[in-house]
């Protein structure tokens, strides 16, 4: 892969902006709420702006790795600080920027332990940015862990609904995944004989088949826990329900993508033969996840659980796309990571707003909520339409690409996936009807609708969903510019 050095450290700025914000927050007092929020917003805003900049100014014709920064870090162990942007991670950096920026706005009304909340949230997002841009396995894993661990505290303090159980379950599941990832990474490191963690250099090594098979399955399972791969997904609905709104947004929207991105970037990239060996298995788990997520989601009455299980099935689509190993499949998978990230963020953002007012997420209790809060309901309904795969929304194209590829490679699993998505769409509409278009619950009639300022983050999210729904080519050509050489290199 060609590397083009950065003229200015855009990526480091994107990464360090939350860190600087975090350190400024440490020195603010708890009661300076406005200052705390403004610092967080500016820190997130800078990263958001830079992520848009890298996305827009990435030169697709030139291809390869751009905005590269490389510094030797630990000489003795061959660790380098190596970050860069290519077609497949630019959308995900953009996604992270969108979600953190709107996440800060969504949590604007937070009253409890505001300072610490934003400190942990900024720490978490630093990790996420780091994973998406790192091309050194040490830093990749370091950032991966940074992204995972603050969740425990975020859920424990600011969460709801069985939060103690959920926080511990989530953390242990994800750390157990890490327990599989470390041996995988180190096995590659040691069997390469190069004493380097640089992924591009490791890619050039022909690992023996058994190393590839073993490493791939370790990493697939380890990262798969975070990606919500069935049957290791059980932490995810519980965790998403318990987490505070912006954390659910970040977690379902971005963190789960870390898992699937890592499977693509590390496992498939470094162990192509391992991938060939396990591809059928991946496809099977992914298809099961799609069907399972749809049907379990149907039985839920808590709105957040509905979204939680729909995430399992949508992440199954990502997994199915990856398992195909074709250009269209991978393209769709990355697109779906982006689209599902924005969509889920919108889902949780909308539910969070409703829950903060009514303190319920029960479908039947909410009843005809659209008559009380038409705008807030509209946000949710838009997300639901996107989740159901309505054309004109970003998810439609992503799912289309994946399903076309899947039917070619795994016909039966692909058809099952399509069938369950159609059923899922039907029932998603039922959920929308029961929640928003029945008789309104008189308890809630005194609530006011979303103010323009609080509506802003949701509007941004909808804007991105519709933009990439109408102009999918922008995204598809971007991803394709790196997927095609990726497949050729496998």
């Amino acid at each position: 892969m060609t590397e083009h050095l950065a003229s200015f450290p855009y990526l480091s700025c994107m990464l360090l902006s939350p860190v600087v914000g975090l350190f400024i927050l440490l020195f603010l007092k708890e009661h300076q709420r406005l200052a705390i929020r403004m610092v967080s917003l500016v820190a997130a805003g800078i990263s958001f702006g830079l992520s848009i900049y890298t996305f827009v100014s990435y030169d697709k014709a030139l291809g390869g790795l751009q905005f590269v920064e490389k510094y030797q870090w630990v000489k003795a162990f061959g660790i380098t600080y190596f970050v860069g942007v290519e077609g497949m991670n630019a959308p995900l950096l953009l996604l992270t920027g969108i979600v953190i920026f709107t996440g800060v706005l969504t949590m604007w009304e937070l009253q409890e332990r505001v300072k610490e909340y934003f400190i942990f949230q900024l720490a978490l997002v630093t990790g996420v940015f780091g994973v998406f841009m790192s091309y050194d396995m040490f830093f990749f894993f370091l950032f991966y862990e940074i992204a995972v661990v603050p969740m425990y505290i975020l859920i424990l303090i600011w969460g709801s609904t069985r939060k103690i159980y959920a926080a511990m379950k989530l953390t242990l599941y994800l750390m157990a995944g890490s327990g599989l990832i470390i041996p995988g990474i180190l096995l590659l490191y040691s069997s390469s004989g190069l004493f380097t963690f640089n992924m591009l250099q490791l890619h050039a090594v022909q690992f023996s088949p058994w190393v590839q098979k073993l490493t791939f399955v370790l990493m697939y399972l380890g990262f798969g826990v975070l990606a919500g791969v069935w049957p290791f997904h059980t932490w995810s609905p519980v965790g998403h329900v318990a987490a505070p709104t912006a954390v659910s947004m970040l977690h379902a929207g971005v963190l789960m993508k870390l898992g699937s991105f890592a499977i693509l970037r590390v496992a498939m990239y470094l162990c192509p033969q391992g991938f060939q060996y396990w591809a059928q298995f991946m496809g099977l788990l992914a298809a099961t996840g799609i069907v399972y997520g749809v049907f379990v989601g149907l039985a839920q009455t808590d709105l957040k659980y509905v979204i939680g299980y729909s995430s399992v099935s949508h992440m199954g689509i990502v997994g199915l796309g990856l398992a195909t190993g074709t250009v269209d499949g991978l393209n769709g998978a990355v697109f779906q990571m982006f689209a599902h990230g924005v969509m889920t963020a919108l889902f949780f953002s909308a539910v969070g707003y409703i829950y903060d007012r009514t303190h319920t997420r029960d479908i039947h209790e909410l009843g005809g909520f659209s008559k009380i809060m038409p705008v807030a309901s509209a946000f949710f309904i838009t997300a639901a339409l996107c989740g159901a795969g309505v054309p004109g929304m970003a998810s439609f194209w992503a799912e289309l690409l994946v399903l076309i590829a899947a039917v070619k490679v795994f016909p039966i699993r692909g058809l099952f996936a399509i069938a369950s998505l159609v059923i899922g769409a039907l029932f998603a509409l039922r959920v929308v009807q029961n929640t928003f278009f029945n008789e309104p619950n008189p308890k809630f009639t005194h609530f006011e609708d979303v103010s323009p300022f609080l509506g802003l983050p949701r509007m941004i999210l909808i804007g991105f969903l519709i933009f990439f729904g109408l102009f999918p080519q922008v995204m598809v050509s971007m991803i394709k510019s790196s997927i095609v050489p990726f497949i050729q290199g496998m």
Partner: protein
Amino acid sequence: MTMLLFGPELYFLLVALVLFFFSLRRTPKVKADHTVATVLALVGFLVAVACIGQKGELFFKAYRVDLFSQIFKAALALGLFLVFMISRNLAGIEERLHAEFYLFLTTCTLGMMMLVSSVELLTIYVSLELSSYSLYILVPMRRGDDIDVEAGIKYLFIGAVSSGFMLFGLSYIFGATHSTYLTDIIPKMPELLASPIGLVGVLLSLAGFFFKLSVFPFHFWAPDVYQGGANQVVTFIATASKAAAVALVLRIAALGAGAGYDFAQALVILSIISMTLGNLVAIIQKDFKRMLAYSSIAHAGYVLIGILAFNEAGYSSAVYYALAYLIMNFTVFMVLNEVARDGRDLKIAELAGLYHRSPLLSMSLILGIFALAGVPPSIGFTGKLLLFTSAMNQGYFLLVLIGAVNGTISLYYYLRVIYAAYFIKGEGLPPIQLSWPTKMLNYALCATILFFGVAPDSIIELARAAVRTVL
């Protein structure tokens, strides 16, 4: 001029003398003693750092001063200084014994400093006993119920037994090689290790240090001593004493480096049992110090992972981890000392409301605990990853897998501490006021944990240069 090589040790000998005179006073001057001792320890640390570049041999070549020994001397002096820093409020020990507390900690440090420089079997043994006897006195010094006596006796007996093992092993090595000098022994080892006597000799010689490091099967004292000893004494045992033990295990284990499969397998088994046992038993502990004791058993297992790689990378990562462990474990103990001001044993649940009582302490606690659990970006994470890397390079896949899984298990009980500090409400408990030196200490420790976790290169290069003289 040659005596300058002995500088740090001479300095601490003098400090011990000064403190000895303090202990003769009829009416104790608690505050003044503390201030003097702390300042002297700080100067000692500076002396040790100033001597870090020295090289040479003393006492008929029984005593070698090199980068390896000087780094550990600086670490030990730092450990002593840190423990004195948090001894302002020595509620666990009677006032008339405070001067003795400082005196014996200083002699213990002196013993360990001599230990890390010793390259002759008898010198090693004598230095080890000097440090051990000081601790045998310190452990039962605690005021109050009889638990301290039980702890003291347990520590003494298990210490004596492991010393016995060690002497037995040393006698084998001496018998087979006709020398007590490590420099003479090392060239003869490859040949000797082919026979059982060499292998048994080296393994048994390690027993004395496995005891200090609380490696299975010499770990039985740890929980009781941690719980029964005064908090400050335990802090010293859990930090400085461990670092010295790692240094000596590195030196002795180097004897077995040529032994190949058998010796390494023995260490692999000890490492796996220590990690797994420590982590599993720590889960059910309710007393904070007992939990930390079991976690120290687990950490001893992690350090062995680096040692059994028998190469520069492995040894330097073990040194890095030992230094990191000193800092992170101290951070946790400092919080424990501040919360248990009256010198009592702290239950994990008693950390309740720490977040409200002192945000700064709770931040230190979270960083210390995360570092112990191996969560980035902390020295604990980097250290553990380096250990695993060096072991994997030697082909220990299963060992690394087990180590990594153990990391997950340990997270459960570490998170319970954070849960208690952040989440359980401490109704009616007063805020904890910190003096300005303690505040500075908190900031310094947090900064160290984060900075060297993200930028470990300088320490690793130093450690690599140091271990070249050992291997």
